[in-house]
Structures are given as structure tokens and as C-alpha cells.
């Protein structure tokens, strides 16, 4: 469904993605792990057309991702993204945030969109917060609204960029459990995360990215239990034992 073929990306003189390829098929959950600055966010942003790439090709359902082309709007309505810092619209309530895309972009009837918006907020455990503004919600609640906003587009796949990294530790679980439910329902997901427990339990495949290249990739159990590459071992060791 998502195909990334040998993409390269530079910011000025600095090449940050140095030939990355992978595929994500329908219903698959792929986790991307790797140290800070390795290019994880950049890859997701390229897939969503928020960033241009210098060479290679990304396609979604056979459509080439081209941030400069009108087709990107169509792609984005089918490929949602959830951000580290939630990025809700602060001047709109939880429900208004969720229906914004369906009503303004997909031109759904407002009443229908509200109905479904309520269902989605209920699904992420926020039926009591329909009319709350983002500023009055906790980080975990905001991120769940953001997930509902992504789902409201009825996407074929969702990209998550470190969705729990900005959360207080006790709020991480509520967001991960919503994501696990989605995975169990068969949603196609690409998740950049440092939550190894989540990757182990939910991911079909894990990619280890370092300095703009995929160093190692494999099934979650394989890569996380028996990493082959020294760098992967190092990284996992540091994530699991941060004080050593």
C-alpha cells in the first residue's frame, strides 16, 4: 500500500536520508525505531508530502507522492498523520477538531460528521469531552482527540510520529492502548516510537534507522530479541538501560 523506494533527502548540504526503501502492505503495522536525528520524522513527513525528497519514489496505492501536485490533497484524505505535539486547532472544541476534515475537505454533511465524530471520540474514551477546548485537556486526551481527527477522514493508513513522546509517563498507556485497538482492527500503520513494549506487542515489522539508512529490519520479535547489527544492539541496550 505504501512503497518507499530508495529515497534521498538533503537539508542544504546535509544529507539526512541516504537511500531508504521499504514497503507497507495493507493491514500491516510497521514500527520505525532509531536514535534522535536519524531521519525518522523526515521519512514520515515525506510520505505525507509535508516534505519534498530529492530522489527516489514514494507511492501510496499506486499514486506518486508529490508535495507540489494537487494529487497530494487526495492522498492526504486517505493517509492521516498523528504528530508528537498533537497539533490540535486550539480555537476549536474536540468535536470541531474531529469534524473539520470531513466537513471542510470531504464536504460531508455536518450532521453526519458530528454523529460520526461523537462515535470516534467515544471510541477513544472521550465521550465526556466533546465540547472541551484542547487547552483544557491533558496531553493524553489531546493525543486521543488527534487520533480521532485522523480516523474521521476514514484513512486507509495512519502515520504516527512519536505519538507518546510528549506525554507524561502515566498518560502513555491510554494512547498506546487506543493505537493497539486500531492495529487489531486491521488499520495499516507506520509508527515512529521509542516504546519498545508497544513495538514488540503490536508491530508486524520493525525498521531500525540510523544516520539516514535502514541498518536492520525484521519481524518485531526477531529484531528486538536478537538484533544482529552492533548498532541495533547498542541502541536497544541504551533505550532499555538509559543510565548505563
Amino acid at each position, binding site marked *: 500500500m505504501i512503497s518507499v523506494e530508495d529515497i534521498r533527502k538533503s537539508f542544504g548540504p546535509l544529507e539526512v536520508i541516504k537511500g531508504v526503501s521499504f514497503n507497507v502492505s495493507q493491514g500491516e503495522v510497521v514500527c520505525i525505531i532509531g536514535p534522535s536525528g536519524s531521519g525518522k520524522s523526515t521519512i514520515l513527513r515525506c510520505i*505525507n*508530502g*509535508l516534505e519534498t525528497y530529492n530522489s527516489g519514489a514514494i507511492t501510496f496505492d499506486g499514486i506518486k507522492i508529490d508535495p507540489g501536485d494537487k494529487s497530494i*490533497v*487526495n492522498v*492526504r*484524505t486517505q493517509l*492521516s*498523520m498523528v*504528530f508528537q*505535539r498533537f*497539533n*490540535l*486547532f*486550539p*480555537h476549536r472544541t474536540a468535536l470541531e477538531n474531529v469534524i*473539520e*476534515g470531513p466537513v*471542510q*475537505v*470531504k464536504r460531508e454533511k455536518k450532521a453526519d460528521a458530528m454523529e460520526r465524530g461523537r462515535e470516534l471520540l467515544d471510541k477513544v474514551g472521550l465521550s465526556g469531552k466533546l465540547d472541551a477546548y484542547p487547552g483544557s485537556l491533558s496531553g493524553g486526551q489531546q493525543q486521543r482527540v*488527534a487520533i480521532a*481527527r*485522523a480516523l474521521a*477522514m476514514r484513512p486507509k493508513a495512519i502515520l504516527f510520529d512519536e505519538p507518546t513522546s510528549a506525554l507524561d509517563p502515566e498518560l502513555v498507556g491510554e494512547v498506546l492502548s487506543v493505537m493497539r485497538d486500531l492495529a487489531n482492527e486491521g488499520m495499516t500503520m507506520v509508527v515512529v516510537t521509542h516504546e519498545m513494549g508497544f513495538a514488540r506487542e503490536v508491530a508486524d515489522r520493525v525498521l531500525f534507522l540510523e544516520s539516514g539508512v535502514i541498518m536492520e529490519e525484521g519481524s518485531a520479535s526477531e529484531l528486538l530479541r536478537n538484533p544482529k547489527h552492533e548498532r541495533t544492539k547498542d541502541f536497544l541496550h541504551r533505550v532499555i538501560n538509559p543510565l548505563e
Partner: protein
Amino acid sequence: MSDYLARSAQYFPLLLEGVTLTIVVTLGSVFLSSILGLVWAIMAVSKSRILRGISRTFITIIRGIPIIVQLFYIYFVLPELGVNLTALQAGIIGLGLAYSAYQAENFRAGIEAIDKGQIEAAHSIGMTDGLIMRRVILPQAVRIVLPPFGNTIIMLLKDSSLVSTITVAELTRQGQLIASSTFDNMTVFTLVALMYLAMAVPLTFLTRHLEKRYATS
């Protein structure tokens, strides 16, 4: 003293006519400068280098020429090029253009204060640039822009007196005309000053109120 009041009463109707024109000029140029200012601001933050360049060039030119010279240019020079405007039209267009440059700076600051993450989130649900401007940026920018906007209106109210130099019979001009025929400078200009104050003070309170209201949110 009663003599003073009697003379005031005599000048009052003429000055009120001036007040009416002052209000017309102020409102007209507030309207024009807001629309144009918004256009420059949107151009200034657009992706197109050309649009950004046009906006920057225009603002630089406008800010570098005294308003009174701009007014003279529009009223006295344009007719030579075949563009004839009434004094009132020239006054509103001149002040509107001049102030659009200041408004643009204010609007641009408001637009740029919106967190980039929200704009990316809006893109990621398929919103186009125009939709993002209308649904995400402008509704939030308004809160940031309103208090300085109030100050701009007050400044425009006072600077509307500049159009007296191109024969628009607004408050200042009426004052000058009465004073030069009666030599009663003291009474006339005291009245003129009080009338400006009567218009500006409520606006000042309104602006302070807006500042307080939006400073907290």
C-alpha cells in the same frame, strides 16, 4: 464666558459637518487599509517569491514617503495622468494606501504567530492553503491583531486631519476656515481639539478593553 459659549454655539453646526466628514474619511480608510493590508500580509507569507517581493517592495515604498506627499501625489499628480478623483476619494485612497503598509505588518505578525505544527496538521487532513488561511490562521490571528488594530484606528482618526491639505472639509479644515474668517483661534481650535478627543477617548477605552480581554487567553 457667556460670550464664549455663544460663539461656540455659533461655530458648532459647521464643525459638526466637519466631524461627519472626519468620520467618513476615517471609516473609509480603515476599511481600505484593512483589506489592502490583509492582501499584502497574505502575499508576504505566501510561498511565491514574486508575491513576497511585490509585497515587500510596496510596503518599503509606502513607508518611505510622508503621508502628506502621498496625498498630494494622488490629488494633484494623478489628474495629469488622466485619473480624476474628488478630494474625498483621493483622501480615503491616500490614507488607505499609506496605512495598509502598517496594517500589513500587524497582520503578518498575527499570521506568523500561529504555530507551524497546526498548519502541518491541517495539511495532513488534506486542507488547502486557502482553507487553512480561512479556517485555521485568520480566526486565531484576529485575537492577536485586534488590540493593535484599535490603536491603528485611533492614529487614522488623528491623521485624517491630513486630508485638510487637499481641501477635504473635515474637522480640521472647517476649523481653519472658521478661524481665518473670525480670527477667533482660541475658541475654534479648542472646540476642534475637544471634538477629536470625544471621538478618540472611547476608542482608547475600547482598545484597552480588547488588550485585557485577549492578553489572558
